[in-house]
């Protein structure tokens, strides 16, 4: 039995679907960030798998994943700083109750 490309893409697809579901249904801001991490992670898997199977002599997909991991780290750190600042201001992290900046 061979491990084909499809067998790596299907778990990544399910991971992305879970990320979409969590992003829509969750109410805690940190839980939304966690769902976002799931989606980013599944895209990283896709880049790497396509690179490995279709262009094994090059490493563009791997480099893209490397930079995506770095950017995801930066983005998460900033988002968590914002969440903590919002929590300090209004004592809540529930997105239904953060309506002050809506117009």
């Amino acid at each position, binding site marked *: 039995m061979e491990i084909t490309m499809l067998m790596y893409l299907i*778990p990544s697809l399910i991971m992305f679907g879970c990320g979409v579901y969590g992003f829509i249904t969750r109410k805690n801001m940190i839980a939304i960030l966690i769902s976002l991490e799931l989606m980013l992670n599944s895209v990283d*898997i896709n880049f790497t798998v396509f690179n490995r*199977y279709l262009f094994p002599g090059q490493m563009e997909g791997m480099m893209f994943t490397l930079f995506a991991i770095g950017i995801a780290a930066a983005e998460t750190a900033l988002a968590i700083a914002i969440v903590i600042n919002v929590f300090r201001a209004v004592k809540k992290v529930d997105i239904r109750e953060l309506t002050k900046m809506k117009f």
Partner: protein
Amino acid sequence: MDSVGNILMYFIIALAIIVFSVLTVTSRKILRSATYLLFVLFATAGIYFQLGYEFLGAVQIAVYAGGIMVLFVFSILLTSRPGNNSEPLTTHKKWMGISAAVAGVALSGYSLLSYGAFLGREMSSNLNVDITRIGHALLSTDKWGYLLPFEAISILLLACIIGGVVIARKR
């Protein structure tokens, strides 16, 4: 032909990814869902190791499992009491989420299966990503060099440090 251990490892990783990513978004205790996310990230690192990208797997474990998870756990403990359940979902919102996720997965799964002449391709064995080649590619300005994104990321991380300090500072 892959070895039996390789295939067994693949199935363990795939099962872990599917189960834990479902649990991540359905668990009602937020600290538990962060822990399940940690397992998903480890399984992803396992995929990278299995594909032969050892450096990428190491980066995944160091940055995601080491850095981001610590940030998540700290911010969860700062903003909510860890024993608390989140409220149950309203059915309206739940169905909205399920339909969006299922529609997206069905669309991509259909296009994947109908387009995929290349999907059955086997893994070729001539992979050469040793650490020397990665280092040369990261710091060269040639055709396959990545010096500019490397430096741009360094500036981005610097801006992120300053922004994090400024935003989270106590006034």
